[in-house]
């Protein structure tokens, strides 16, 4: 039972997709209900796994492995540890919320929910895959539905939805091309022919065998960094993200900003750090500099945006900078913070996009200058905005604070002065978030919106679900950090061994 | 002069080149179809020749010819149907006028 639990989580949306195929497109209510039930079942099972995961034991649990293409060393392997389980939880909770936030979709709902469920399956598979081949397979499964969804259900503002969808897809595909090259090289190099395997666990041991030379690790890590960095919207590969979110329909924005981006961070840790430690160490200074670019630069750009989705788009770029910082500081504290921050940002950006979706759906406006005093007519949506915004600002008691603090602490141990620059990000975040919040929520009553109803019924589900997670993990951060740390803490000696590896700075110094 | 495999092969090469020449210079779709048939026959001659001249215990080469002829027959049928369709749509069988795929 527990062995196949993860497979069942993965399978629930697929079963729903098959069911949906047999439902007439006119039965809109049933389509939505089936999608909601599928994601709900996945979510419940994930919560069960989350509760039953043994933090003290750490490592991969709930493993299942079935050989698939044994000639190539491919096996269908799924399993969760303290890194992937929070991400799986995040995926499911956002998926569940995304279904409800798309409750009012009436244009081709069948196709929409089928694509949405496929997308969710892909993302989930990426996070729980214990096999690189499955990982890639699921990752590629993700990109295509997004393109279709943006093109069909997207919205055109500053850029057309076609442009946005194309940009997003091409960026991600180019990124994944680099990634693919890196992974194939890794596959070929790690073990001699005949013993080759795609198993991530086995590949993580490869550097101990000495088959992966330092220069090889450096090159392959760079490839992975470009791939995952693009996905994570690392500066300067970030411009797809605001445009993409602006063009995408609400659910896609939620999933994309909430979970999909996190595949980048997850991949960097799972493949970049654990498989290619010397490469990670080598490139860490560069990542830090680029990440600071993310944090400060994107925050600055967010300040002058006029469109709500662009603000949140750039805000997510900025927050991803923290994740990268946490990654590149390469110690247990910062890594814990980086993963926790991915979860935190996922929840809050999903909530943000859900709220923006409602506002746009009801008022057909997204421009900050045209929205005013929404708190008068839509107090519930205003609460959602405030929760998400305050979490984004890093207010203690909400999910955003502790991960950021942890990252800062980890970074401070390594690069104190850069950490100060990073911390200044909290001021900029406050500036752009508050600027948006106060402009759209507060101010004189806008009588044009009087006829517009507040969120109610199914629309409240995202607000309630995401909001309660936001507060729960905010007040009891140990629930999240403890789990992550159960897996990260044993890496202490692994990370300490990295101290002897040269970094770019050392090499640079040597040249000069 | 003694006739060996080489002579037959040269004959088939010549036939093939004539067919190719026809394909390249002709504008009429029917003529092109005919030239394709010529080329197919050149290939069939090769089959027959190899089967005849090379040390081979059975008649596999001739069987291949049968398949080749089958495919050729099918190709002629479909090709003619396509030409009819083109004629129906474009009112011409001149291949120069049919260039919708021009980039």
């Amino acid at each position: 039972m527990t062995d196949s639990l993860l497979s069942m989580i993965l399978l629930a949306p697929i079963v729903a997709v098959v069911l949906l195929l047999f439902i007439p497109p006119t039965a809109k209510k049933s389509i939505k209900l089936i999608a909601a039930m599928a994601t709900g079942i996945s979510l419940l099972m994930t919560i069960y796994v989350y509760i039953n995961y043994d933090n003290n034991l750490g490592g991969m649990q709930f493993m299942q492995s079935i050989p698939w293409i044994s000639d190539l060393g491919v096996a269908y392997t799924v399993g969760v540890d303290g890194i992937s389980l929070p991400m799986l939880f995040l995926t499911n909770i956002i998926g569940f919320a995304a279904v409800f936030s798309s409750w009012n979709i009436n244009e081709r709902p069948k196709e929409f929910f089928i694509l949405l469920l496929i997308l969710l399956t892909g993302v989930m598979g990426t996070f729980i895959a214990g096999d690189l081949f499955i990982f890639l397979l699921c990752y590629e499964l993700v990109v295509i539905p997004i393109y279709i969804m943006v093109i069909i259900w997207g919205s055109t503002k500053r850029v057309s939805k076609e442009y946005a969808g194309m940009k997003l897809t091409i960026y991600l595909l180019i990124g994944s091309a680099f990634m693919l090259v890196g992974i194939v090289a890794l596959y070929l190099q790690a073990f001699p022919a005949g013993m080759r395997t795609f198993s991530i666990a086995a590949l993580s041991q490869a550097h101990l065998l000495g088959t992966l030379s330092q220069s090889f690790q450096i090159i392959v890590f760079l490839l992975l960094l470009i791939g995952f960095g693009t996905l994570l919207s690392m500066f300067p590969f970030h411009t797809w993200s605001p445009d993409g979110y602006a063009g995408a329909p609400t659910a896609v924005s939620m999933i994309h900003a909430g979970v999909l981006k996190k595949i980048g961070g997850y991949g960097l840790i799972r493949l970049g750090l654990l498989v290619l430690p010397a490469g990670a160490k080598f490139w860490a200074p560069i990542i830090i500099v680029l990440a600071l670019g993310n944090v400060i630069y994107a925050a600055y750009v967010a300040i002058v945006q006029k469109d709500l989705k662009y603000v949140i788009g750039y805000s997510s770029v900025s927050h991803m900078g923290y994740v990268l910082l946490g990654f590149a500081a390469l110690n247990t504290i910062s890594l814990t913070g980086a993963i926790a921050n991915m979860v935190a940002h996922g929840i809050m950006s999903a909530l943000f996009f859900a709220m923006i979706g409602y506002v746009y759906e009801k008022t057909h406006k997204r421009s900050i200058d045209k929205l005013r005093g929404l708190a008068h007519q839509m107090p519930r949506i205003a609460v959602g905005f405030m929760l998400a915004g305050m979490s984004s600002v890093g207010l203690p008691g909400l999910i955003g604070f502790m991960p950021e603090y942890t990252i800062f602490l980890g970074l401070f141990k390594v690069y104190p002065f850069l950490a100060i620059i990073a911390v200044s990000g909290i001021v900029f975040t406050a500036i752009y978030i508050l600027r948006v919040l106060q402009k759209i929520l507060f101010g004189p009553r806008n009588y044009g919106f009087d006829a517009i109803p507040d969120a109610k019924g199914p629309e409240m589900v995202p607000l309630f679900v995401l909001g309660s997670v936001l507060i729960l993990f905010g007040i009891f951060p140990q629930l999240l950090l403890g789990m992550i740390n159960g897996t990260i803490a044993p890496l202490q000696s692994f990370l300490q061994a990295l101290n002897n590896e040269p970094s770019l700075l050392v090499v640079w110094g040597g040249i000069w | 002069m003694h006739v060996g495999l080489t002579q037959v092969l040269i004959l088939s090469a010549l036939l093939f080149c004539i067919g190719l020449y026809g394909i390249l210079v002709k504008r009429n779709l029917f003529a092109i179809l005919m030239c394709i048939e010529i080329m197919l026959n050149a290939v069939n001659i090769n089959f027959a020749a190899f089967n005849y001249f090379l040390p081979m215990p059975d008649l596999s080469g001739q069987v291949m010819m049968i398949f080749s002829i089958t495919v050729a027959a099918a190709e002629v049928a479909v090709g003619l149907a396509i030409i009819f369709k083109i004629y129906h749509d474009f009112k011409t069988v001149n291949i120069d006028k049919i260039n919708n795929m021009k980039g």
Partner: protein
Amino acid sequence: MELFALNHAWLIPLVPAAAFIIIGLFFKEFHQLSAGIAVLAGTFSFIMSAAVVMAVLDAGISVEMPFIQKIQWIKIAGMHFSMGVMIDPLSAMMLVVVSLVALLVEIYSIGYMKGDKGYGRFFAYISLFSASMLGLNIAVNFLQMYVFWELVGLCSYLLIGFYYYRISAREAAKKAFITTRIGDFGLLIGILSLQMVFGTVDFMELRHILPVYIAANGTGLLTIIGILLFIGPIGKSGQFPLHVWLPDAMEGPAPVSALIHAATMVVAGVYLVARSYFLFAQLPELLHLIAWLGAFTAFFAASIAITQREIKRILAYSTISQLGYMMMALGVGSLTASMFHLLTHAFFKSLLFLGAGAVMHAINEEADIFKMGGLRKKMPLVFVTMTIGVLAISGLPPFAGFFSKDEILAAAAAVSMPLYIIGTITAFMTAFYMARLLFVVFWGKEQHGHVHKTSYFMQIPLAVLSILAAFAGAAGYVGGFGDWVRFGEAMPEHMNIGLAGISTALSVAAIALAWHIYVSKKYLSDIIAQKMGFIYTVSFNKYYIDEFYAILCRIFIDGIGKIMYFIDLYIIDGIVNTMAALTVYCSRIFSKLQTGQIQTYVAIFFCGVIILLVYTIVFFTKINELAAGGGF
């Protein structure tokens, strides 16, 4: 009983928090019920706090030997934090001040907020604020303090923007949040540095580690950390140059101004310095800086307050000025004086704010003092209580302010004469502008025929606070406040008669001057203003600091933001779009190869075949040669 109070001190912040959740989730629309819940929770907190104070007095808990209770909040490899309760005289005093003022303000608000649409919301916020502020008071470590520090900031933001439909209110709220955020930035870095250097942020642990560390490493790094930590209080307690948010914060309802922006939250900064005085006391240079910054702020704010016309603005600048006093006291090494002033100030300043609120409430929210006038007869209770407040803040004996202010000045005089002189001048100015306020509002021509009645809910807190403002100082003075709330040695209670006499005389002179100008009109204020010309204008416009910041903001925030966005749009995206366009262009060129003529393709195909054939011929010849020459 004592043990019970101490062991259950964690309930003090938790009960108002529960009230917030209950009101916020269920009873927001039930006005009376929500007020009832909030007041009930406030009462509970106050009784518990009082019991805690009793317990502290009885159990002999001192600053050195606090009562500590904590639970693990976060524990990961290399980092762990606790949340807990730390009761020592300092926090016990703060607990009682905060819970008492909060309770009184809640009662006052029952009357003040009557008829407001956001009644339930107001009480929810106030409850959340009490919870956060009380949580801050009992913090066991810097992180817990920071957590609640941010939460009180949030409450302040929410309450300043309480009238969210007013643009000025929402702007003020934003300004308050962002300005204090700049302070928090420093504080956060300070806390991170502490964590990094010492591996802990726990107050008690740090207190034990510090002397060892200083003995080993000196104070160089510690001074930097101290400065960083102090940036937080600069923001929160409205010290120069981050004071700009506090006057604007008066956009909130008057009870909020009384509670948050006078009595409790703004003193959080002072409290933080006091709490971590074991650190600051080791850093004489930093203390010097704090003292001078405090003195400057006190003087600077007072000089602005003199010319302001809006009643709450005057009080706001007065608050900044008094906070400067407290900082100065800390800077000159007298924690006791600072805390004593904090205590008395909480009473008389909230009294003044509540009184001002009552006045404004009575005359349709008119804020300009020169449009009030002659309210003495119409609002006798408010007049009496306000007068007590003004006398208290002016430092006239036997009112509360006299004792605390005198202690500060004495402490300053003991350290540095210039500081004492600035303090005394500030005291003179304080007395003057407070008297000006009192005289202009309550004397002079009656400008309002009809005055709304002040409800009993509003009168009772005023009365209670005025009693406290009148006697708390003397009581504390006699009751051994200095023995109790102190750092290091207990302060001997002796009054420097000379200094006290000078400041009293100056205060009386200032009040007399104000009487002459504003009541008997011997010297007309307008003429003085004209004569002072430049100085008056500068002071009236608050030294143009807001404008200066606006320009800075426009250049360094909006300006750079626009440049960055330009880079994003036209350089980064430009490169991307150029690449895309280049691809399209190339494909246009290559698509020319697609003539649509199968013959062309066939011809090209066979060209390829020929090339391959030629290659094969040449290559095969070579192979044959090799084979012939025995190459294989």
